[in-house]
């Protein structure tokens, strides 16, 4: 049984399921918990709690929904010496993430230019299944991308040095080893660099509609009425293949290390084992691919702005990972420990003063970017001390699916959806009709409610609300 702790927290006691080693905790209000209880999320949070060497609690953010092994919206930290790493705990789309770009323009400067800008972006940034990137890097050069991430992109003219401080890990996760990424993964990746992808990935032109915290918004370079661009994309086929490869390696490894799991998708190995270390280095390489990918798209966004509205002064507010495992220092049971934090559909949310933040964000905290579903609002939040105490410095990552793809398809045609969005003044370009209807706004939870839970629980604080003006879908 779930135990309600307060308005925003539900505890899953260790007694809930045989084999649980730690408690589970779900962040939700009365309505979201009902949605969460409709699928297997609670069971998956409990299943994660059975893994060896985890510390603290197995967590689910308010946008949580059923995933594979781990739920989407799950956070779990493993002791670096005693714990395990799970490829499924990061997910297939390694470093799927969000990047927010701020333009110097306001909506009044964009009269009649939103649609041309969207069309330009749609021409310049490849999207949809099967589409190749504009740049087909050689396998040797791809290894450099995997090592250097966004730094590779900047060194090759896709952006500026100043961009890097505004990316989680400065756009490059160290320890990446391209030799541990299979040739299959590289085959899937080398022609997909600089592509948006499909599914729930998107690019939106948005307007800052509400500012909740003027001081913090100002420090992030954001103000009411401003035109911003949100990019949601990941490591494409390369990352998906890395996860596929290491699920099998970990499954075989479990026999060797005497580990059994309740769900094969939770396959895991000790972090310090050869297989565990290899995965961490391959995952870092895939994460760097995603950082590079979003950096290249940023360059094309700047070019599109220059062509359509005459400025390329588009700055990065921040870039966050949603699917990642990170080696971080946290306070656990009163002592400082190094842990590997799995965030699967969750965002890092560091408070001010955290050593991992760049100098210019030291006295304000990390921007936490929460995209809504297509046609609804997105949010900027800021990391808090409370998140460090409770969630290993983590927060939610989006609205979270509420309806299946089949259900979404049955309820709406692409034409009707386009009409609805148009009636709200939102322009849409999508590669396929299937992709559009499956991502219709009410296929997701109410992002505002999700964000209110995060804010209410204190694991991130609201800064600004963004509303879409134009959407590009793969």
């Amino acid at each position, binding site marked *: 049984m779930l135990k309600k702790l307060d308005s925003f927290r539900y505890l899953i006691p260790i007694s809930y399921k045989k084999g649980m080693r730690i408690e589970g905790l779900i962040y939700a209000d009365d309505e979201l918990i009902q949605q969460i209880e409709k*699928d*297997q999320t609670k069971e998956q949070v409990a299943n994660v709690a059975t893994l060896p060497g985890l510390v603290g609690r197995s967590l689910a953010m308010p946008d949580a*929904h*059923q*995933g*594979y*092994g781990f739920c*989407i919206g799950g956070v779990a930290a493993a002791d670096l010496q005693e714990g395990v790493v799970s490829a499924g705990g990061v*997910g*297939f*789309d390694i470093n799927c993430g969000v990047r927010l770009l701020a333009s110097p323009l306001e909506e009044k400067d964009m009269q009649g230019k939103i649609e041309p800008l969207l069309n330009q972006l749609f021409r310049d940034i490849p999207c*949809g*299944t*099967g*589409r190749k990137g504009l740049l087909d890097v050689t396998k040797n050069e791809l290894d450099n991308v995997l090592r250097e991430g966004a730094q590779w992109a900047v060194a090759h003219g896709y952006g500026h040095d100043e961009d890097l401080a505004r990316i989680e890990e400065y756009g490059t996760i160290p320890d990446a080893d391209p030799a541990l990424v299979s040739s*299959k993964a590289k*085959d*899937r990746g080398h*022609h997909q660099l600089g592509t948006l*992808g*499909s*599914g729930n990935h998107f690019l939106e032109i948005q307007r800052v509609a509400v500012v909740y915290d003027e001081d913090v918004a100002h420090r992030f370079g954001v103000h009411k009425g401003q035109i911003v661009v949100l990019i949601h994309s990941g490591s494409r*086929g390369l990352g*998906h*293949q890395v*996860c*596929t490869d290491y*699920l*099998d390696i970990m*499954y*075989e490894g479990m026999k060797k290390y005497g580990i059994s799991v309740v*769900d*094969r*998708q939770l*396959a895991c190995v000790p972090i310090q084992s050869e297989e565990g270390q290899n995965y961490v280095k391959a995952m870092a390489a895939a994460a760097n691919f995603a950082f590079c990918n979003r950096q290249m798209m940023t360059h094309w966004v700047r070019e599109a702005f220059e062509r359509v509205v005459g400025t390329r002064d588009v700055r990065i507010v921040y870039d966050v990972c949603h699917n990642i495992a990170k080696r971080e220092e946290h306070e656990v049971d009163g002592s400082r420990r190094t842990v590997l934090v799995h965030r699967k559909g969750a965002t890092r949310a560091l408070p001010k003063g955290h050593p991992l933040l760049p100098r210019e964000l030291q006295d304000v905290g990390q921007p936490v970017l929460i995209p809504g579903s297509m046609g609804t609002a997105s949010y900027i939040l800021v990391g808090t001390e409370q998140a460090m105490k409770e969630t290993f410095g983590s927060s939610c990552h989006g609205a979270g*699916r509420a309806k*299946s*793809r*089949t*259900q979404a*398809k*049955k309820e709406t045609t692409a034409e009707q959806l386009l009409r609805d969005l148009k009636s709200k003044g939102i322009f849409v370009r999508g*590669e*396929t*009709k*299937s*992709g559009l209807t*499956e991502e219709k706004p009410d296929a997701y939870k109410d992002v505002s409610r999700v964000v209110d839970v995060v804010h209410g629980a204190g694991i991130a604080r609201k800064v600004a609300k963004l509303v879409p003006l134009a959407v590009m879908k*793969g």
Partner: protein
Amino acid sequence: MLAPASRSSVWFCMNEPFRILDHPADLGVEANGSTLAEAFQHAAKGLMTVILDLDSVACREAREVVLRASDREQLLVKWLSEILYLYDGGGFVGKEFTITQLSDTALQAQVHGERFDAAKHRTRLDVKAITYHQLAVTLHKQGATVRVYLDM
């Protein structure tokens, strides 16, 4: 394009030997066959049907697939992962699948199709990977049924 929704889990493939399954975030494929090999073949067709409209694809070339796995379940995931890899990594769209040898731990197959052509092929959805979530390989009197969920 949408099939009449007489069964909630079926879309755009009413007359096929597979059906598309619902999942809160993603999709699954369930395929039947008079033999396990046939069920594997149908599952591959189901996978590619999620990604694109196979009516827009011709069989002009073939690829050989040879795989080993530790059990039947892993073999199914590896088989479908290979078909996905041929498409996403090799730009080759598989349409017809012929398994020539199959045991619990090994598979050999011919995949017929053609190179991906964005101008010609009607694409649908991106499949990221094949998962082990609620994976099932069942042998029964009528033959075999396999079930697999896809990460979208």
